[in-house]
């Protein structure tokens, strides 16, 4: 479970997050949708521990992690540029989290292999990230994010750099995988089709605030503010 309680964050004069509260239940998939600069990436980075919040608290699986560094939070994060380690093989990338946890070589390689199989990337263990296509890199990044059995999955525009065909397929795969692992998941995107097509609930963000959160039906039928309907393209 991911719980954000009234978190705020400013960078100088720029308010990135303003009293944002959000709860993502175990197994729930929440998309955070908004224009660029709305604070959605800061939100994700605050959960991951990369951005310290000014006010408010962050809870993961019932533990207050507000003051914890990223390595103590055990979240699985997929970065927009995938951030695969270029000097390591696919297998070394995926087993990295388990290695940092001190697991022995045989068991972490077993786990890494099974996660790669789960994401359809078995057979590429000894390849380097640079030898893979964008879609394959994305799958490896997802495999790496879930291999260390995280308490939450955070996805930062994971499909933005992919062709449309692959994007749609990976979106469905991601959703199926998330359902199977029952991980509370937050996906950040500026693509409303992606958000509404994958998530149980979608949070619309604007200027550091969550303007409205709900299912696709709620948002389209009962927009809370003109901004929601404008952003979803519902007004003429």
């Amino acid at each position, binding site marked *: 479970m991911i719980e954000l309680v009234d978190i705020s964050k400013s960078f100088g004069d720029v308010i990135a997050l303003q009293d944002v509260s959000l709860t993502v239940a175990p197994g729930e998939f929440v998309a955070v949708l908004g224009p660029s600069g709305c604070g959605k990436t800061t939100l994700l980075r605050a959960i*991951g*521990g*990369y951005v310290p919040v000014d006010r408010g608290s962050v809870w993961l699986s019932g533990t207050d992690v507000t003051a914890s*560094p*990223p*390595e103590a*939070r*055990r*979240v*699985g*994060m997929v*970065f927009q*540029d995938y*951030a*695969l*380690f*270029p*000097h390591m093989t696919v297998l070394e990338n995926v087993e*990295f*989290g388990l290695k*940092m*946890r001190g697991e022995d070589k045989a068991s972490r390689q077993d786990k890494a292999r099974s996660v790669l199989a789960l994401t359809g990337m078995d057979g590429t263990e000894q390849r380097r990230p640079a030898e893979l296509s964008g879609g394959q890199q994305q799958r490896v990044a997802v495999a*790496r994010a879930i291999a*260390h059995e995280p308490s939450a999955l955070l996805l930062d525009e994971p499909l933005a750099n992919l062709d449309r065909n692959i994007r749609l397929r990976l979106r469905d795969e991601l959703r199926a995988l998330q359902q199977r692992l029952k991980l509370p998941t937050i996906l950040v995107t500026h693509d409303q089709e992606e958000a509404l097509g994958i998530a149980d609930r979608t949070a619309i963000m604007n200027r550091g605030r969550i303007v409205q959160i709900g299912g696709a039906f709620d948002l389209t039928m009962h927009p809370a503010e003109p901004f929601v309907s404008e952003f979803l393209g519902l007004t003429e």
Partner: protein
Amino acid sequence: MKESQSNRWLAAPAAALWAVGVALPLLLVLRMSLYFRGDVSGPRQFETLFFEPGTWTLANFAKILTEPFYLGTLSFTVRLALTTTLLTLTLGYVVAYAIYRATPVGKVVLIVLVILPKFTNILVFVYGLKMIFGPSGFWPVVAGEVLMLLPYAVLTIAAALEAVPFSLVEAARGLGASASQAFWRITFPLSLPGTIAAATLAILWSLGAFLSPYLLGQPAEYTISVEVDRQTNHDLNWALAAALNVVLLGVMAVFGYSLTAIRRRLA
């Protein structure tokens, strides 16, 4: 085919410059190193002042490789170069890392501070150091060399670090690596080829160290380059000076080749 040939001709001016400016002088030095020493005071002193024309000998090399004085100078030169390189890399990496992690404005400020000393005339720079360090000796020489080389090392390593996206470090942290684990497992290995390039530059440069040892050192700190100057301008033994040069070039080639080979293997 035609295009590749015309492209080849584009390299001609550079090749000509290299031939006249690098290859030819080196060949002349090589030839010079194989003469007998000239007769400075005999009846033919004006024809044979610097070397004995028309002769061939390996005596100069034998002298360098057997006499304790030259072997000592050679080993000191290598020791100085290794010390200088090690310190330059360590300090250079720290400063480069500070640049890597700085804000965009901070980066500019730091880079300007790093290259600012290069706007000073080198003699003024070294005499300034002389005033700071006072009595000459090994460590003032090392300090002079390190400070001369630091900007090149910093810029080379900073360029290597800038090519490592910080998201890689964040990804490692998210996977449970502490800040230092992330540095040693991600940042450092990925910046290593650039660091070795900086090492190559530093060691080749410091093997040829002249100004710092000459101006900040005692005779105990004189390097091969200082000895080459002495043989060329004071003892007028050009053949020996050339041979010293060739030996130094050989040492440089060994270091340069090995470091380049290591870098290639890593990259």
